[in-house]
């Protein structure tokens, strides 16, 4: 199994009483809540944490894209990836954006990713996402075009990487006389492509297609949902005539490793609860704008998310559902081994900083994870 530390770079100094006045930490929360002096420190702290993950021997580090919110401060993730490309030496750098349907010109991503891939000497992992529903409110992009634009932008970018230019591109949304991307990607034919998703049959069937075999990442979902989507990927692969490897599926999940179970729970509790209840807070209409999912998927997700978004989350509830893994190194090892055996993912994306979790706790948890958890899984899956 391989380990990629994912960071959201939240605005950890958020005034958590904001929800007395506003119903979300996204889109409509005034940016007067952001203090640039505190924010500047946070950015540098978070970059330090990802650089430290490289030193600790993680296989990779992941940045992420979200817009107009306190949950994650990386609207332009390529800025962080560019900084990390110079300061890290071994780790793969996964950009788990870019939200392709938000773009007027997807060739900017072909260029940006190719630059990072060159500077890092071929360490880039290219993420393609649709963004969460809130992004469509923040950017005014039409959610009803989300799937179609995603596929067209993806096709354009992959062709820009793999075909010698210049060539014309004639799409519904994007049209170019000259596609001729400079620089070409360092990795040939192109960097590995990962598809993070909150779970949709359409995405899974598309990602698992034999012509793509993209790594599918399930993000922040209960373990039962994780198991279902991973099984769906494997079934889709079988139907399409091949057997998927564990390497093709991954799981992104918040994890905290403490000295003992009791200390871990006590240390993580306020921060993981703030993550779910404050930073992820948004009305359903913001999360699921019309067209973001097919009508059929929308019906299913409305039921599932309704349950997930309803009420205040507690650390115990999150642990029970498998939405959070927390405890001593021994406990975390056991939980992971159990999930890995049941579900069979080959990539794990531990989110070792979340919400308001301060630097010293983050660093200690990262060290325990790297030294006492990762080694147990080398050679597994």
């Amino acid at each position, binding site marked *: 199994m391989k380990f990629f530390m994912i960071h959201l770079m939240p605005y950890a100094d958020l005034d958590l009483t904001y929800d007395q006045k506003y119903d979300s930490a996204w889109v409509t929360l005034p940016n007067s809540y952001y203090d640039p002096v505190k924010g500047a420190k946070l950015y540098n702290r978070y970059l330090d944490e990802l650089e430290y993950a490289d030193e600790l021997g993680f296989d990779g580090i992941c940045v992420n894209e979200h817009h107009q919110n306190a949950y994650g401060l990386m609207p332009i993730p390529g800025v962080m990836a560019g900084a990390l490309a110079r300061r890290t030496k071994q780790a793969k750098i996964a950009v788990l954006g870019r939200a392709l349907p938000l773009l007027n010109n997807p060739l900017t991503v072909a260029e940006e990713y190719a630059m990072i891939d060159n500077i890092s000497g071929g360490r880039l992992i290219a993420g393609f996402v649709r963004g969460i529903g809130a992004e469509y*409110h923040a950017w005014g992009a039409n*959610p009803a075009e989300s799937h179609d634009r995603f596929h067209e932008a993806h096709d354009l970018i992959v062709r820009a990487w793999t075909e010698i230019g210049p060539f014309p591109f004639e799409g519904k949304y994007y049209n170019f006389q000259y596609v001729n991307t400079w620089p070409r990607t360092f990795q040939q034919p192109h960097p590995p492509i990962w598809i993070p998703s909150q779970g949709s049959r359409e995405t899974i069937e598309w990602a698992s297609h034999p012509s793509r075999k993209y790594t599918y990442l399930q993000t922040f979902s209960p373990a039962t949902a994780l198991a279902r989507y991973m099984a769906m990927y494997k079934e889709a692969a079988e139907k399409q005539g091949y057997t998927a490897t564990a390497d093709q599926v991954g799981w992104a999940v918040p994890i905290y490793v403490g000295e003992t179970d009791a200390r871990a729970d006590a240390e993580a509790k306020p921060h993981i609860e703030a993550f779910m209840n404050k930073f992820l807070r948004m009305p359903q209409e913001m999360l699921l*704008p019309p067209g973001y999912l097919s009508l059929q998927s929308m019906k299913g997700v409305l039921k599932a998310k309704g349950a997930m978004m309803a009420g205040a989350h507690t650390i115990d509830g999150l642990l029970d559902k498998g939405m959070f893994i927390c405890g001593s190194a021994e406990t975390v090892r056991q939980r992971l081994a159990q999930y890995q055996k049941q579900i069979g993912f080959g990539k794990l994306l531990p989110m070792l900083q979340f919400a308001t979790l301060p630097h010293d706790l983050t660093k200690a948890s990262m060290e325990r994870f790297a030294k006492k958890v990762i080694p147990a899984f080398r050679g597994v899956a």
Partner: protein
Amino acid sequence: MAGVQEIMLRVAGCGVSVKRAGKGPPLLFLHGGGGAPRWLPFMARLAERFDVIVPEHPGFGRSETPEWLDTIGDLAFFYLDFIRQLELERVHLVGSSMGGWIAAELAVRSTHDLASLALIAPVGIRVKGAQKADIFLWSHEQLTRNLFADPGFAEVILKMPVTEEEQDQRLKNALAMAKLGWQPRLYNPHLAKWLHRIAVPTLICWGDSDRLIPPAYGPAFRDLIPGSRLQVFERCGHLPHAECGEKFVRTLTQFIEGVRP
């Protein structure tokens, strides 16, 4: 719904659900974003003097969603085909909200078969500084409450039982609404330039308590459509035909009677 015919027609390759009742000159009603799942009291009143035709737009309700549906302009051309296929002549075209936008787009293309045009709180243009409400961030309950000036109206609607089919149609209607109006938000930047082409008598209706589209849009439409008249309904929200039905039917009927045959 006695006497109301419900039929499926095929127009421009799209199966479209149509309700129709009454005798008299044809009156084509184009619904707004909420669709037209039911035959409403104002339709029944109008059917006493008109041949009232209420389609569900392609993409909405029981109608199909055709491959060609991308913009409101597509629906404007669709309804020009619809009018021709049903061999309607001297149609009184009435559109509410998004349906008003379709009607206006249709009329700038051709008024050949129209006798008159009535726009009820239409969208389709932008008045700078007069922000439309962000309906896509409202829950169904918030939307329902904001549609009416009289809170009692929303209460009654919110208490009605909802079938699974109606739930599904709400999702379907919201999807079509987003497809057609998300960006630019509920308007076509090029429509205002051509509204002067509308050469049939035009009535514009607006509720003075419209919380979706600010009443400032009423005078803007009136000034852009030559010879048009603006009727403001007092203590009335976004749907005067539903909330102030009696007055609306009277106003519309008088307006149509004033149209030279």
